[in-house]
């Protein structure tokens, strides 16, 4: 048995997700990602089952593991109780732990997620905090979103929110002591280390790609990973 397979087996999601796949392809048939991307969850499970370190390393460096949307439709339908979605989550964790995620276009996007969702979690206590996030980044949100952004606190007040207020309620200010607890949980359970690993690996990759990367999102590397699509990921329609 390869060492990486042993490492994957330490992740309870991997143990829960893999119960001897029979390669029937049901997961691929139901998979929303397989319909859009050049992607087969069946093949991922097949590769992992070889327990071959070289093949697993190739997977960890690949685009493939980043195509899944984690809808978990595969878990419902697998006749053997496998969950390729959970296997993917274990692979993505390992890819980040080993620094391989920056070797793929889709993997590099982890920094964008860390600097948006991750930053919001630790600074506000919410996983999305959207005041000021406009239709320049989210054009699909439409003119109603522009109107809402323009009148943000008044709209929330109208709809019964306690916007940035003390006490309970919608989009209340989460107390600093609570945020300290959250940060301490991240510190002692590996969350902060994961964030640091994403930062460190991304900085090295940015240098290698000759792209500027400083704090925040207004830099070349962030804008590149957030917006760039090589258009090589899709299923051949023919």
């Amino acid at each position, binding site marked *: 048995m390869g060492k990486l397979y042993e490492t994957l087996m330490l992740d309870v999601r991997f143990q829960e997700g893999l119960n001897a796949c029979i390669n029937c392809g049901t997961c691929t048939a139901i998979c929303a990602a397989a319909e859009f*991307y050049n992607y087969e969850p069946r093949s991922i499970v097949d590769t992992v089952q070889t327990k071959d370190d070289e093949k697993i390393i190739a997977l960890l460096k690949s685009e493939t593991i980043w195509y899944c*949307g984690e809808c978990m439709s595969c878990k*419902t339908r697998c006749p053997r109780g496998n969950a390729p979605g959970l296997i993917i989550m274990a692979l993505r964790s390992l890819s980040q732990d080993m620094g391989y995620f920056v070797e793929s276009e889709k993997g590099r996007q982890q920094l964008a997620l860390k600097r948006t969702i991750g930053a919001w979690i630790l600074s506000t206590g*919410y996983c999305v905090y959207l005041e000021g996030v406009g239709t320049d980044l989210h054009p*699909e949100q439409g003119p109603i979103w522009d109107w809402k952004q323009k009148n943000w606190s008044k709209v929330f007040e109208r709809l019964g929110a306690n916007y940035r207020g*003390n006490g309970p309620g919608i*989009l209340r200010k989460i107390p600093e002591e609570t945020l300290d607890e959250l940060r301490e*949980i991240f510190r002692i*359970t590996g969350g902060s280390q994961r964030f640091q690993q994403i930062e460190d690996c991304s900085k090295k990759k940015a240098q290698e790609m000759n792209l500027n990367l400083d704090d925040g999102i207004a830099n070349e590397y962030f804008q590149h990973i957030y917006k760039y699509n090589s258009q090589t990921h899709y299923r051949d329609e023919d």
Partner: protein
Amino acid sequence: MKIEGKQALWKDYQKEIADDNYFYVRSCIRQSFFPGSETAFLNIMRQDLGKDVYEHPCHTTCTGIGYHSDIVPLETTMTVVARQFALMTEAGYKNYVPSCVTSFGLYTEILDIWHHFPETLAKTRENLKKATGREFQIPENLAHASDIIYKFRKEIAAKAKYKLINKSTNQPIKVVEHIGCHYSKMFPSKGVGGAEYPYVLVGMIEEWGGEVIDYPERRHCCGFGFRQYLVQANRGYSIACSHKKFESMQPFKPDLILTNCPGCPMFLDKWQYAIAEMEGKTYGENGQGIPVFTYEELAGLVLGYNPWDLGVQLHQVSCEPLLDKIGIPYDADKKYEGINGQKLGIPEMPLTLKCC
């Protein structure tokens, strides 16, 4: 009575839902996009149904969006969830009610992991104690907020001012329901009706007078896909999933799309706008879209709440065609007002999608 056939199958997918004294935790996405829905849920529970619902000011994100974007490790997420349970325990509650379906799925997943791998529960208790000094009990009852409205659907029907009936034709309003994937695809036994035939929204629609319309892609994901929407370069995945659903449901001419997940109504609403602007294609009547509602909004409407108190003016697809069909009155001049009638201007009109 002997229970067999479909009845026996259905029996496996009933779930116990507590009938009072709830510890409510909010959804990051629902608060941001549909604040009126959470306000309506609490008003319905407390004022219309007389229930005790407690909200702790110090609860936070469950980290679910970060966890499913794979930036937050499982051990971290389990400890944040444990902290939420600690707040419930400290407040003296046992019935845990998340507003978010991603959260609900995450709680069911973590409780399952703790059950199968007790050492992870022990480690989580240790981590939480070390980080915060807190201790927790596992909830006696875990139900999504839509489960609670489902449980009281008959009581709501009894107090309803409006039925889901088209007042012009006297026919039931035709509704397609969309269940958030993480409600029951991971753990079918934890959702009312399971994963293939979830009944949580169907029960509301039927009880309130509407007709549920089946269509081929009923169970397909709305396309959130976490990183597939959150990163701009990947959003083609998201719109493609919603597009597949719209194309599949359109021939059945639904009057309404009803959802139970915070993200799904936003995607199914906004992607209709994007498809209209990109391709000139619209899915509703007369160049409009198909209105998309949360279950709290629909419950509020049938109970006679002012539509603008529910926040349906924040949808990009206009809600008025549905209100008109049912005969729910509204004051168009007040649609975009703040409190005390403050005028906030009006949004621009999309180029293609017709809006009221």
